[in-house]
Structures are given as structure tokens and as C-alpha cells.
């Protein structure tokens, strides 16, 4: 079995290279494939309304997946993002409805902009808790973020006794109106959420490629010991990635509450799994050191389009889960095959060079 691809590769280097290029572009190919498939199989799939609706769904997962990508590149994992989404939604809802009671007869109400800032700060803070547990107390990322997953979800439920904060329109006299802008607003015909995604994604991609922090994120994931000896502040890098992940989750919490004009404490359950799936589908390596923001976004689109398309085709949600799982497995298998092929091609190039 193993001999066949080896010999094929020896016989024609160029076919190996072509195969390698195809494999590298696999996420893109998958994206085009699902787009083509559903545009034929599902009526109305390519309508503008549907595309916009779909991209809004995708955007939510894409935010989480970007945060997750940085975390996974450093060799960690963040299971708490779904709970942070829920908790941040509740924070925003609570502030719109109740403000902060100062216990001396006054209650402060914030305008929507301030509420957004506070909510983002809460997300970053929870990320910082993750980071501190991992860097200072040496808790394994899986366990630390699992613990925070429960704590944050519990706090979200406690904040309202498990009830939904409904009707977040706000009161004009308190200046709390306009919360719906994030979820329902449009700029130049596109949803605000998409514009935010664009900004955050460009920022994250720039960070990864052109800043020392970005370089350090990859170095920490590739070889933490070597990074440390080279003077990389490993703990700071890790703090950053978990805080950024918390930040992304807070954005998602805000957008969802704003879309629904209500905050429900169970929002975001199992979102972390979709985020991990998107990152992995986009070529992020679970062992750390490899991954791109662009790949992750494409991965999020593949997963999002796949699930929305299947819904439109009327496929049962049970089958949807099976299909989604298979796609992820195939993606990782192809990823491994690509690594092997790549090292073989490199070896051969070196052998030829002498």
C-alpha cells in the first residue's frame, strides 16, 4: 500500500507536486464543492437573502474559530468559549435592562457603546482567568478551560435564575436604545456583524504574519522550550491567546443577544466544538505551531454552508451530524497525507540536489 504512492511520486515529481498543491488548497476546494453542490441541489441557495443569512451564521462560528486558532497554534485548547458567549450575552442583557444598582438609591445606566465595551471586557477577563490558570497554576489547558466552561455557564444561569432577559429595546430616557444595531443593522447593504468579522479577521491575520507577537505564538506552539530560551515571554503569549479567544466569544455573545433582542443563559452551548472543527478543517494542527486565520475562516464557511445547505435540502439533523463528523475526519486524514507527501517531496528535492 505505502509503496504505491512512493513509487508514483518517484516516477513523476511533477505529479507529486500537483497533488501537493491540490491538497494544500483542499479547504478551498471543499468550499467550492459545497457551494456548487448546494447551488444545484437546493433551490434558492444562491439568492442574496439566503447568502446573507448564511454568512451571518458563519460569522458567529468564524469569530470563535479565530480565537480558537491562536489558542490551538500555541498548543492549547479553549473549551470555555461557548459558555463565555452565554455569559457575555447575559451581561449585556442585564446591563440594558437593569443597569448597575449602586445600592445607595442610584442606578447607573450605560449607553449601548459602553455596554459593548463592558461586555468585551468581561470576555477578556474570563480569558485572562483561563490564561492565569494555565500559566501560573500550571493547569492543563483542557482542564482549566473545562472548569471555566462550567463556572461561566453556571454564572450565566445564576444571573437570571435561568430565565431569559427579554425585549432588550432599552428606554430612550435612559439612553439604552439601539442595542439591535449589532445584530440587525446594515452598512452598505451588508450586516454589521460581517463588517466586524472582516475587521477582526484582517487584524488577526496581520497580527499573525507581521508582528513579533504573532511570530511568538507560532514559536511557542512549535517548541515551547526553544521559544523560552530564545527570550520569548511564553506566559505573556499564552495569556494573550486566551484573552483574545475570550474577546472573540464576547463579540459573539453581543451579536446573538442583539439579533434576538433577548439574552438566554443557555446560548452558545457546544459552540466550542464547532469552533474547533472550523479551525481544524482550515488546516490548524492540534499539536500546535501550524494554522492560518484565512484557513480557519474558509473552514468556518465550509461547515456553515454545509449545515445550512443540508437544512435547506431537508436532510434530517441526525444525518447532518454524521456528515459534519465525516467531513472533519476526512479533512484531518488528508492533512496527514499532505504532511507525508510534502516531506517525501522535500527529501527527493534534496536527494536530487545532492
Amino acid at each position: 500500500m505505502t509503496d504505491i504512492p512512493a513509487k508514483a511520486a518517484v516516477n513523476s515529481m511533477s505529479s507529486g507536486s500537483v497533488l501537493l498543491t491540490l491538497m494544500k488548497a483542499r479547504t478551498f476546494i471543499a468550499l467550492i464543492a459545497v457551494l456548487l453542490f448546494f447551488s444545484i441541489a437546493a433551490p434558492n441557495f444562491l439568492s442574496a437573502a439566503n447568502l446573507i443569512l448564511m454568512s451571518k451564521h458563519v460569522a458567529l462560528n468564524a469569530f470563535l474559530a479565530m480565537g480558537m486558532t491562536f489558542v490551538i497554534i500555541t498548543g492549547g485548547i479553549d473549551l470555555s468559549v461557548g459558555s463565555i458567549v452565554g455569559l457575555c450575552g447575559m451581561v449585556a442583557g442585564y446591563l440594558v435592562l437593569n443597569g448597575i444598582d449602586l445600592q445607595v438609591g442610584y442606578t447607573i445606566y450605560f449607553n449601548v457603546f459602553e455596554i459593548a465595551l463592558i461586555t468585551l471586557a468581561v470576555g477578556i477577563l474570563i480569558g485572562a482567568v483561563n490564561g492565569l490558570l494555565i500559566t501560573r497554576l500550571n493547569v492543563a489547558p483542557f482542564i482549566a478551560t473545562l472548569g471555566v466552561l462550567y463556572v461561566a455557564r453556571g454564572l450565566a444561569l445564576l444571573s437570571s435564575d435561568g430565565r431569559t432577559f427579554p425585549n432588550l429595546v432599552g428606554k430612550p430616557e435612559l439612553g439604552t436604545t439601539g442595542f439591535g444595531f449589532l445584530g440587525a443593522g446594515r452598512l452598505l447593504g451588508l450586516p454589521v456583524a460581517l463588517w466586524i468579522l472582516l475587521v477582526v479577521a484582517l487584524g488577526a491575520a496581520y497580527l499573525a504574519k507581521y508582528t513579533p507577537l504573532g511570530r511568538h505564538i507560532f514559536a511557542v506552539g512549535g517548541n515551547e522550550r526553544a521559544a523560552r530560551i530564545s527570550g520569548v515571554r511564553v506566559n505573556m503569549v499564552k495569556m494573550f491567546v486566551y484573552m483574545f479567544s475570550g474577546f472573540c466569544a464576547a463579540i459573539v455573545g453581543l451579536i446573538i443577544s442583539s439579533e434576538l433582542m433577548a439574552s438566554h443563559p443557555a446560548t452558545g452551548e457546544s459552540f466550542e466544538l464547532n469552533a474547533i472543527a472550523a479551525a481544524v478543517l482550515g488546516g490548524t494542527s492540534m499539536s500546535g505551531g501550524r494554522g492560518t486565520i484565512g484557513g480557519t475562516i474558509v473552514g468556518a464557511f465550509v461547515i456553515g454552508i454545509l449545515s445550512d445547505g443540508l437544512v435547506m435540502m431537508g436532510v434530517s439533523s441526525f444525518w447532518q451530524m454524521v456528515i459534519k463528523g465525516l467531513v472533519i475526519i476526512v479533512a484531518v486524514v488528508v492533512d496527514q497525507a499532505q504532511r507525508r507527501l510534502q516531506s517525501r517531496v522535500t527529501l527527493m528535492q534534496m536527494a536530487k540536489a545532492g
Partner: protein
Amino acid sequence: MSGDQDVILKLEDVSKVYSGTVAVKRANFEVRKGAVNVLVGENGAGKSTLMKIIAGVEQPTLGRILLDGEEVSFSSSGDAVNRGIGMVFQELNLFGNLTVAENIFATREITNRFRKIDRKEQERRAAEFLERLEAGIRPDMLVEDLRIGQQQLVEIAKAVSLDARILIMDEPTSALSAAEVEILFKVIADLKARGVAIVYISHRLEELIRIGDTITVLRDGRITGQAEMKDVDTQWIVRQMIGSDAKDFAKADGHVPGEEIFRAEDICLPRVTGGLAVDHVSLSLRAGEILGIYGLMGAGRSELFDCIMGRHGHSTGTIFIAGKKVHERDTTRRIRRGLALIPEDRQREGLVSILSVASNLTLASLSRFVRLFHIRGAAERQAVTQTVRELAIKVADPAQEVSSLSGGNQQKVVIGKALLTGPKVLLMDEPSRGIDVGAKADVFRTMRKLSRDGLGILFATSDLDEVMALSDRIAVMSNGKLTGMFDRAEATEAALVAASAFGHGPVPHGEQGA
């Protein structure tokens, strides 16, 4: 005296290629029973790879292995053990969290009728093997609590306990004192008398000549000489090992060292298991001086470097750079103060192997190329190109992954990374380990050039020739202590060896450090 019937194992035209290097090229090698078959060669000549092929740890890329005249192929070390081949590994392959007895019987546990491990019996049998090594090691001790030298003895006991027909020993004496070596030789003589074929690898030529029956020399993955030990002398071995031209150590250029640039005072590092890994070490270094630190494996050289770099929060002592006390305790800021470390283990500590050559080179010095928070690509590329040229790193494109380079070129990348931080003091831990002769000469030349430019260089090595040839002064460490300090003019090999064995004994010394 020995005909073909004595040959128990034969390698025919064996080659092994790793990504980046050809480790063994078409080697033919015979192992005779009841004899000590010596294998020598420089670091990186391919000895360990060849032995790993025999022991089933690695599979040959090409070629055949004949055992008792019949072709075999081992898919794992378990296969080889089943055919009677045991190996003492150079890197200790022990489980620190298990006891000595559990280590010796790992994967061959002695069980009772109910498949339960018979701990008592294991410890009794283990004690017998340890007895022969006179090491004073109890079978119920945890391996991680033992000295490196003692761990090496456990490794030997484990291999002996296999009752192997062929026993490979890869540098079994690298952490042993002279007295411990004597005991090992008695054990080897005993095994030989029982008809066991022993393959013995070592750097110490005097050892080889004493116990070897046949000798095979490897250079750059090729076998360059094979002879009966009684027919050869040291000069012959050296000639085969390094080829026609003499070892290229880059001559001293006679420049005079300047002012003191670095001083360490009273550096201590406690061991987890009690005692001190670095025991009140003080030394000073002048600008333009190369200070060699010689010692056996586990003498505390690497740990000393780690303390100087601030890698251990719980180490004590003070360091000074150019007369000014260094208050910073973390690696990042110590690098900024002008310290740089080239670690011993390139793969684990030196390189981020999945990043490119360029990213590795600039990893420690990124702040030099940054405006605000943006890495200026042009400035970075220019520095990379310059370093690649200056250190003669053989790479087609710096965007290539660093793991695709050969060992020597990888080492140059690690050195380049350290130099780009603009250090005043360079700490080099075994800088010539596992690289080929040409790259070694390049590294030594670079060291000379840097010292001429006024850098202070501390370099740790367990290679006597190297330390004698390159150092302006030589410090010797043993058991965490500084046990000798010699000027090059007055240093003799005998004095260095004596100082490096200080505090070692055949029986473990008491808990003196605690």
C-alpha cells in the same frame, strides 16, 4: 584465530537516510561472538545509527542484515531482543518514575500464575545483576533519584539481564568514573568468556585499545577502516577517524583577552531529589576569551548555563556583565543584557523545527526589526541573508523549514540566532555535538572569530581534544562543583580527567550535598 564461523551478525551494504542527512552510507560490518567488537568515529559519524539498526530501533533504508547467516529484518527493538540482541543506549532510556527493578524488567515483567507482577522476585533477580556491577544501587530505588552515572549502570544491568547473544554498548562510560569503568570492564570480560558478542562504542581511545578485539572506524557514515585491534595503534585510529587532514580546530590567533566581561558568583541550583546540581560555582571570563568547561555527563555544566540564563527561578547566586550586577532574573531580559545560550539539545531546545530558517534565525532578536509593532520585512530579510552568508549556512531558500537542513547547518542556525541578539557573552553547550567534520570546523572557526571580535565565550564539552585545543582557560566540573581551573599552558589531559572524576566513586558517596 577467528574464522568465518565466529561471525554471528553481518551487515551488508546498509544505508540509512533521514530527512536532511545520510547517516550511514553502504556500510559492511561484522560482529564476532566471544569478542569485543569496537566501533569508533567522530560525533555524528553514524555509529549510533548503525547500532540502532542492529538493535531494531531503526530500519535500514537499503541493505541486508544477516543473523547466523540468515537474512532478518527487525521491525522493532522487541524483535531484536527476541533474537538475542540487547543494547545499552547512549541517551538513557529509563523510566524515572519507576524503580530500578521495574526498569530492568520493563516489558518482560515476571508474573505469577494470576498474571500479577511478582515484585519480590523481580527485585531479587535485579539485585543479582546490580551486585555484579558493585554499584550499591538498591532495586527498589526510583531511577530519577539516582546519579546519571548510576542510571547508566542500571541501563547496563538491564541490557545484561537480557541474556543477549549480542550486546551493544553505545558509550556506556560517558558518565562513569574511572573506578566504575574498571568494574564494567570486568563484567564485559565475563560476558565475553561466555561467548557473548559485544559491540562497544566509545570516544575514549585508551579504553578501546584495552578491551577491544577488533576495531571498525566510521567517518561521515562510511566505514573507513577495519582491523584486528592488536595490529593497530592510536595513530592509525585517529587517521581513519578524521581522514588524511588533521583535526581542524582553527588555530589560536594569539590575541590578548581584554577586561573582565562576565563574572558568576556562588551559583547554586538545588536538585529536586536533594543536594545541589550546581554547587557554589564561581568563575569569571574576559572579553575575547574562550573558557572551556570540561566534565562528564551529568557534571552540572548544562545546569550552570541554565542558571546563568535565568531558566531556573530557584537558583541562587549573582552574575555580573562588564562589572555591572545583573538584577534581571528572567531569560528574556538577560538576553537583552547581552547573554545568549546555544543549548546542547538542538531539537528540543534550539530550534522550532516547523518554522522556517529565517523565522528561527530572527526569533530571539525580532525587536531589532520592529517599528511600533510591525516587523519590517526588508530589515529582517537583510539580516537573515547576512547571517546565512557569514556563517556559511547551506540553504537554498531561507523560507525552507529548518528541519530540512543537515545537523551541522541546523547548529549554525542556532548559533546565528544567538549572534543576532548582539551578545557580549556567548554560552555554548556542546556546540559540536552531532554535526559533521566540515560543519564542526566552521563552528570552531566562528568561535575563534567571535572571540577576536571581543565576545566572551563559555563553552561546555565532554571532548578532551576539543577543550584542550580551543580554550584559553579550562574549568573542570564534577558533581556540580568546580573542581579545577587551568591555564591552557599548564593543562594536561591527566589533570583534567582527574579533576572531572572528583567525588565519583564505585560506591555512591553519601548524601554529602544535602
